[in-house]
Structure formats: structure tokens, C-alpha cells
């Protein structure tokens, strides 16, 4: 079969000729001024082995020249970049994306089946007025949070680095300074990431990078199960320049908020709900996902209620915070004496503990469960250990809505009762 570009015009319409490549941002590089070379029918696609238009450009200073490796038809089938074969939306390997979105398109991989398939797909795509992703990807899907978490936030230009200088590896590189290839140790051949195959990566089978990513995701810290059943407080970290109202505005959707306390000194905040399941829902929805004002906030569970009874700083956070007496009848846990004594300089906590324990004595004995993470969240804070001067009140207000001085539904509307 003649393969010259000039002769054999009969099959020419089967060969792909495109105007512009389908590329991801990292492959294009950091320089906004790119000069790209176009060569019609320059190479055959690495997947379907048909000639296609290759584009070649320099993705930045000291980068190797990159070129398109697969044809546009193949890249549209899997919605990947033509050079790096990573997903166009998330920049993740095909295997990761397909597992996360549970896409089970079966693309034939060998011989005539493959050729027949690509031919048909190309025909269909040519007819489509609007370019659409192929197969199950075309279905509108909510943004998958698995993929959002795994995806990189910034372009990873290390991928565009020149290859390792093989002469340097042998110790023979005579070019020295001028050598454009990398003078570094090559990667370990035993490393499974060293044996990657472009077809495996494209079809999403047996891709070591994908497997590494997925296993890393599974081992990543998941949301902890709430410890003590009555804890309804969420500890929010990385709270810098975020005020209470913003937190309220976000967390009100999960349920009624009992109180919000912002501690600017520790850049944290505590959001307490009235209902336990509201807190659980909030934790589930926001763990590792909460971004307010462009800042990612870390969400964890707060301390158990017994230590919380003595918490609530007086006059803290603009005076919006009110201290309410514990609802009698709720079980509370007696805290470990060691954790209290760290900052218990005046022995005040012992007095309030006695009050709490007497209240609980009327009911079941407190579950003998020492709070495991007490040290983590609260030992560094004096917040938990300084009792309010007026915690023992004769009036039986347990919730903000019971407070007669609060006219509105939120503390901002009414005056906080000290």
C-alpha cells in the first residue's frame, strides 16, 4: 500500500486533518505565547495507528518539545488530552476517572475491531453539530468529589521536563552545560511506575499511576465517626478572617445552630448544633470540602459535652456568644483529671465539674469513656478550660431560643444575655 503523502489520494479522506489540537493546560505550558508547528499526517496515532495531524510546540523554557501522540478521534472517545492522555477536566488518568464515575464504556482494543470502531466513531462525530464527549461521559454528572479531591489544583509542569540524558547515566555526556537533557538519576526500574504503556493508560487497564492514586485515596483520612453521642460541636480549623456570620450562613442548611464561636487567636471556630444528626450531616458534607472565602477549612468533631459545660469564654467573640446551662438529663462524661489540670490554675474547673456531675447523678451513670481526642483539640486551647464566671444560673435557659432577651432567630438580632 502506497504511503507517500502525494500519491494515494483515494484513502485520503479517511486520514484525520485537524485545525487545532485537544490539549490540557499543563501540556501547553506556562508561556502564553506559544509557537506551534503543524504537520499534516505527520505520524500515526499511538492507539488506532491511523495517520493524523501532529502539532509540536515548546511548553516553556528548558522544557522538551511536546507533540500530539494520539489522534483527535481517540482523544474524544476518552475525553483526554492528545499528548498526556489525562482527562481534560480533572487531569487524572482514565482509570481513575472511570472508576470514580463508574463509566463502563467498552472500547475494542485489538485489530479489526478497533479499526472498525474508530472508523464508526469518527463518522458519527463528523455528523454531530456540537462536539460531545463519547459514550457515558456525555451524561450530565454532578462534579464528583472524589475526583475533585484527587485532581491537582495547579498545572504540574514537571511533566514537560526533558528526558534523562542517557549518556550522563553511563557517565559519558560530553555536552556538559549545553546538554538539554536532564542530568539526573533515572527512576528505579523496580518501581511499578517505570513501566507504563500508552495503550494501558488510554484504555484504563492496569495503569500503575491510577492504582497508586486510588490506593492513596482509600487510605486518606476519612471522616471520623463521632465519638460521644451527644457531641454536636464541630471544630473548624484554618479560620482566618472569616466571621461568625459567614459560618452561620453556611452551616444553617444542616440544621439549627445552637452557637457559633470564633476564636481568632487560634484561627478556629466552633459550631454547635442543637441536633446531633444535623451535626453529623454537616460534618459529612463539609469534611475536607469546606471552602469559605477561598480558604479551605478543616472540619473535625469538637470535645465531649462535659468539658464543654465549663467552656464558653466570657465576653468572647464580640459578645455574641451566650452561655447556657446544661440541659438536665443529658448524660455527660466526667473528664479525665489529667487533661483538666494542665491549665487549671485556679481549681475553678473542679467546682463546675461538681455541679455537672451532680446534675447527671440523677440519671444513668456517665458512660466511662474518656474522650480520646481531647488532647488534640482542646489542650492547646484555654477555651475549654476557663469556666465562665456566670455559668451557674438560676434561670433554666438551655437553648438560645429560650432566651427572652433574644428577639430574633439568630444572636445577631438580639442582645446576648450575659
Amino acid at each position: 500500500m502506497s504511503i507517500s503523502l502525494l500519491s494515494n489520494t483515494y484513502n485520503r479522506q479517511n486520514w484525520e486533518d485537524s485545525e487545532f489540537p485537544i490539549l490540557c493546560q499543563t501540556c501547553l505550558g506556562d508561556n502564553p505565547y506559544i509557537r506551534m508547528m503543524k504537520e499534516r499526517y505527520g505520524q500515526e496515532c499511538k492507539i488506532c495507528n491511523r495517520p493524523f495531524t501532529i502539532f509540536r510546540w515548546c511548553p516553556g523554557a528548558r522544557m522538551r518539545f511536546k507533540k500530539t501522540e494520539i489522534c483527535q478521534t481517540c482523544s474524544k472517545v476518552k475525553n483526554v488530552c492528545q499528548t498526556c492522555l489525562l482527562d481534560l477536566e480533572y487531569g487524572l488518568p482514565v482509570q481513575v476517572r472511570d472508576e470514580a464515575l463508574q463509566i463502563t464504556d467498552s472500547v475494542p482494543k485489538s485489530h479489526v475491531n478497533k479499526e472498525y470502531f474508530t472508523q464508526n466513531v469518527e463518522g458519527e462525530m463528523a455528523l454531530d453539530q456540537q462536539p460531545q464527549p463519547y459514550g457515558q461521559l456525555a451524561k450530565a454528572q454532578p462534579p464528583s468529589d472524589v475526583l475533585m479531591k484527587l485532581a491537582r489544583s495547579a498545572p504540574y509542569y514537571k511533566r514537560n521536563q526533558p528526558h534523562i540524558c542517557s549518556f550522563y547515566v553511563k557517565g559519558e555526556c560530553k555536552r556538559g552545560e549545553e546538554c538539554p537533557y536532564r542530568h539526573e538519576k533515572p527512576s528505579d526500574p523496580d518501581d511499578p511506575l517505570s513501566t507504563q504503556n500508552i495503550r494501558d493508560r488510554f484504555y484504563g487497564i492496569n495503569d500503575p499511576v491510577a492504582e497508586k492514586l486510588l490506593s492513596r485515596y482509600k487510605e486518606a483520612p476519612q471522616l471520623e465517626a463521632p465519638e460521644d453521642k451527644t457531641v454536636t460541636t464541630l471544630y473548624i480549623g484554618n479560620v482566618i478572617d472569616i466571621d461568625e456570620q459567614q459560618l452561620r450562613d453556611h452551616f444553617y442548611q444542616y440544621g439549627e445552630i445552637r452557637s457559633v464561636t470564633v476564636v481568632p487567636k487560634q484561627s478556629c471556630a466552633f459550631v454547635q448544633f442543637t441536633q446531633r444528626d444535623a451535626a453529623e450531616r454537616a460534618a459529612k458534607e463539609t469534611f475536607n470540602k469546606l471552602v469559605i472565602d477561598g480558604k479551605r477549612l478543616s472540619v473535625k468533631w469538637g470535645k465531649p459535652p462535659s468539658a464543654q459545660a465549663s467552656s464558653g469564654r466570657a465576653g468572647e467573640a464580640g459578645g455574641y456568644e451566650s452561655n447556657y446551662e446544661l440541659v438536665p438529663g443529658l448524660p455527660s462524661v466526667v473528664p479525665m483529671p489529667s487533661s483538666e489540670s494542665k491549665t487549671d490554675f485556679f481549681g475553678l474547673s473542679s467546682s463546675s465539674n461538681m455541679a455537672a456531675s451532680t446534675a447527671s447523678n440523677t440519671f444513668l451513670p456517665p458512660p466511662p469513656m474518656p474522650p480520646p481526642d481531647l488532647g488534640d483539640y482542646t489542650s492547646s486551647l484555654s477555651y475549654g478550660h476557663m469556666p465562665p464566671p456566670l455559668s451557674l444560673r438560676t434561670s433554666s435557659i438551655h437553648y438560645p431560643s429560650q432566651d427572652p432577651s433574644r428577639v430574633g432567630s439568630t444572636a445577631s438580632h438580639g442582645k446576648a444575655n450575659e
Partner: protein
Amino acid sequence: MVKVRKGSKPPPDGWDLIEPTLDELEGKMREAELAPHEGKRKVETLWPIFKIHHQKSRYLYDLYYKRKTISKELYDYCMKQSIGDKNLIAQWKKQGYENLCCLRCIQPRDTNFNKKCICRVPKEKLEEGKVVECVHCGCRGCSG
């Protein structure tokens, strides 16, 4: 081996003074032509050829235009005998091209984007510390 002289006229006066140097350069050129290619890059094998060619033309250009020690007659004779490259010397007369390495480096058709070779970029404009050996003639910067 004596080079073949075009035409039958004897060389003009002053030829005896420049002949030894020219012979030496001829010898170097022959050595470069016969050098083995082992250990060199494919493009690197041609660099000595361009270098010696530049040297020969430089010698004549210097003598005639700078030092003015040879006559026009002798100079024209050397050009006719193709000892010096008249096109390259014509470039050296232009401002900015005084140290041009070879004619390939200013040929836009030889580049992907119709520009000149990287060795024509002045060192100040080139980013810091980048050592270039141009692929055509091994030049490390011939402007400025």
C-alpha cells in the same frame, strides 16, 4: 598536494607571502574532512568544516579590508580561486554581522518558524547562563 588553479595565469604579487598560511589552512581542512565520526554527534561532525571555512575567509578579509596589506588584484585572485567565500565576506561588511559564523545561521528557511539561528541572538538577550552551540556550525554566539 597542490590545489588546482583555475585558469592558467600565474598568481599576482604578494602571493608568496600569504601562500604558507593558506596552505596550512588547506591542510587543516583536509584533516577535518577525513576525521572519524566516532564519539561525535551527527551534526557535530560538520562543525570543524564550517569553522575552518570561516577562518580562511577571515584571513583574506582581514588582510584586504582591515590591514590592507594585499592588493586588490591578489584579493580578487583569491576570490576567483574560491579560497575565501565571497558571500560570507559580503555579510561581514554589514553592520551587526561582522562576526557572522556561517551563512546557514542567517537562513530563515532552515528554521521551523522562519527565524535566524540561536547563535545570532546577542548574549544579553539570551537568558542567563544558557550555553548554546548552534546546530549548524557549533557557534556559541556570533552577534554583538
